[in-house]
């Protein structure tokens, strides 16, 4: 019925696209990043907190990439999320963004890429992780 049809629709579309989980509590920043990735033919799921992202990943881990802010409301922050993805979903690449938190060497072991906010060109910034579409 309705809900099943909706999720069938999602799965069918997901099969032909790269998928990213974008996590930021700032709707304007999150939306901008998500829109740019969608223009690059990514399917993007948006989450407003690390807790929400972890809940998403518990139900659906078919992502190529997680992009997360560090400081967000909730029980866990972006580094906790990165650590969880690193441990439980090692096939998913993780980019961590922050304008306040500079990662330590220990932090860097749990994610693939650090982006200093503000990120003016997210598509270009992610090239080390996802490659250049023009290559």
């Amino acid at each position, binding site marked *: 019925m309705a*809900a099943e049809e*909706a999720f069938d629709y*999602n799965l069918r579309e997901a099969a032909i696209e790269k998928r990213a989980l974008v996590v930021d509590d700032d709707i*304007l920043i999150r939306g901008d990043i998500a829109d740019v990735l969608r223009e690059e033919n990514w399917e993007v*799921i*948006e989450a*407003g907190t690390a807790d929400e992202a972890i809940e998403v990943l518990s139900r659906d881990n078919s992502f190529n990439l997680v992009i997360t802010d560090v400081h967000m409301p909730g029980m866990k922050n972006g580094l906790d999320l990165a650590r969880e993805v690193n441990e439980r979903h090692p096939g998913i690449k993780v980019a961590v963004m922050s304008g306040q938190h500079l990662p330590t060497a220990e932090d860097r072991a749990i994610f693939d890429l650090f982006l200093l906010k503000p990120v003016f060109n997210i598509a270009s910034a992610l090239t080390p992780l996802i490659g250049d579409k023009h290559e």
Partner: protein
Amino acid sequence: MSEIDLLETILLVETDALQRSVVAKYLRDCGYRVVEATNAAEAMTALVHQKVHVLVTDLSLRDESGFQLSAKAKEVRPDLKVVVTHSAERTAKIAGDLCEDGPLDQPYHPQHLVDRIQRLKRS
């Protein structure tokens, strides 16, 4: 779908990220621009900073109800079209007053939402 205005922006407020993404993707495929909000506070931020034509909100949000959000949104943007979605029938009359066309029952097929938005545009 040819009559859909490509510049129409829908603010979709839904707590469940996967359900929100399914509906949002469907609406984008129909030609709408969709802004996704996870709660009422985010929705109000989006309403202040972005041109939104239609607000589609779940009734049960984490920070406040969809009705509260609808009322606040209408204060900021009196011309805003609003759709509240929920299954509880007792909310139907209130939702009808607020939302012009009554609530959608959940779970709903995304096409029903598109149909509803089309009717709102014609109203």
